[in-house]
């Protein structure tokens, strides 16, 4: 991944900056610049998410893509953020502890690296909140 491609998403990846439609109040993460409900009448503004949410579903990855092979087995989940939108992220916990409905909170972590000399991808993972 080139630096520019990673850099332009730093606010979202590091700090969970998404968007919100001021007209209907719907939140978007990852950010959308076009509200599917209000369409052109919508007014999109940035919104920083609290980073708390609930596990909707999960898996434990044993066979990973190249960049993630060193981390297996790891827990991958879909999390419903308290503001409404859902996102896919890793949960840092033992595979036997993850449950549907579990409360989680976001944390800043290394995600992967582009080989030995490439850029290091940082971003958001989650940890159990209880």
């Amino acid at each position, binding site marked *: 991944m080139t630096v520019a491609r990673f850099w332009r998403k730093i606010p979202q990846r590091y700090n969970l900056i998404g968007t919100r439609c001021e007209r209907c109040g719907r939140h978007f993460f990852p950010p959308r610049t076009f509200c599917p409900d209000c369409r052109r009448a919508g007014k999109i503004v940035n919104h920083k998410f609290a980073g708390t949410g609930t596990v909707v579903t*999960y898996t434990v990855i*044993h*066979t990973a*893509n*190249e960049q993630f092979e060193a981390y297996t087995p790891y827990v*991958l989940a879909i999390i419903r953020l308290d503001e409404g939108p859902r*996102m896919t992220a890793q949960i840092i916990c033992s595979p036997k502890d993850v449950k549907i409905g579990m409360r989680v909170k976001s944390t800043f972590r290394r995600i992967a690296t582009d080989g030995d000399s490439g850029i290091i991808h940082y971003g958001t993972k989650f940890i159990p909140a209880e």
Partner: protein
Amino acid sequence: MRDVAVIGIGCTRFGEKWESSFRDLFVEAGALALADAQLSGEKIDAMYVGNMSAGRFIEQEHIGALIADYAGLSTHHIASTRVEAACASGGLAFRQAVIAVASGMEDIVVAAGVEKMTDVEPGASTDTLTGAADREWEGFVGATFPGLYAMIATDYMHRYPLTREQLAQVAVKNHYNGARNPIAQYQQEITIDTVLKSTMVAEPLRLFDCSPITDGAAAVIVAPLERAKEFTDTPIRVLASAQASDTITLHDRRDISTLDATVAAGQRAFKKAKLSHKDIDMVEVHDCFSIAEICAIEDLGFCRKGTAGKFTADGETALGGKIPVNTSGGLKACGHPVGATGIKQVCEIVQQLRGEAGKRQVDGAKIGMTHNVGGTGATVAVHILGRA
């Protein structure tokens, strides 16, 4: 709009074809389809080619022209177009060919699909396939394709009665069918134990819940129904062609365990053909993972939500059951050269309708259906075919 018929089909053997190049594969499938239709190449007006990622698999773009050229048609200057929708590329290529003929724009049109997946290392092919999901917000955080479908399985098994053994039965049934299909990648029967003892990929899915990496190509030729008898005694009519889309990410779906695009495309197809699920004699569904077949047969209406596990375990989706599903062996056993899969599904249904499916023949087959999914359900193509 004109009625459209399939007048010829051709499919390579699927598998890890070290000896065959991308070009060898589509030329073989195309030649088989032309021979089947007793058609010479210069009669072709246009071609649509389903291909997901030649750019990453063999570092070749501009597939439409390449295929027309190596099919020996460069001097005829036919219109040749590549169609891409990840694993649904083939289904969409077929739909584009049907639209071209139905509209009256073209007469004799080839719909083909091809993928050469084994010219890169396994890690690279897995990564390329991740591009069928959202690279920035799924792939980036460590999602794999099996991982995404595994999350569907976790959600499904939390909400509905589906046992691990019932899920394995999908693969067992598809291998049984694959063992009766001469083009299938895997022609061996397996047991539930084979699945349950295979390597864990993404919990709860194991290796035998997953479709393989495959090389292969398939081609079909469509023409106006009124001209079909010029080429074949057994034209197969396209009764409906439907396509639908949904969110690119799994996490944004209305319901994790329902592919709304399958529901939409299925309903549109049934409405267009003025048919219901009861009229379908067999269906090829997109079983990229065992859980995908469970969702597909429910979302297309063959059984109620939450009942597909029992339905499968009871043998209703097997040959001789209420609705035979994936008589070809499906993606699991026949193999899944992603761009070719949607076309292979049409080839299988045409063979069934002509009564040429050999040991996997569905008795008295009159109407069949294909269901081809891109990604985790962001694109779906559904076709209904019937004896003309």
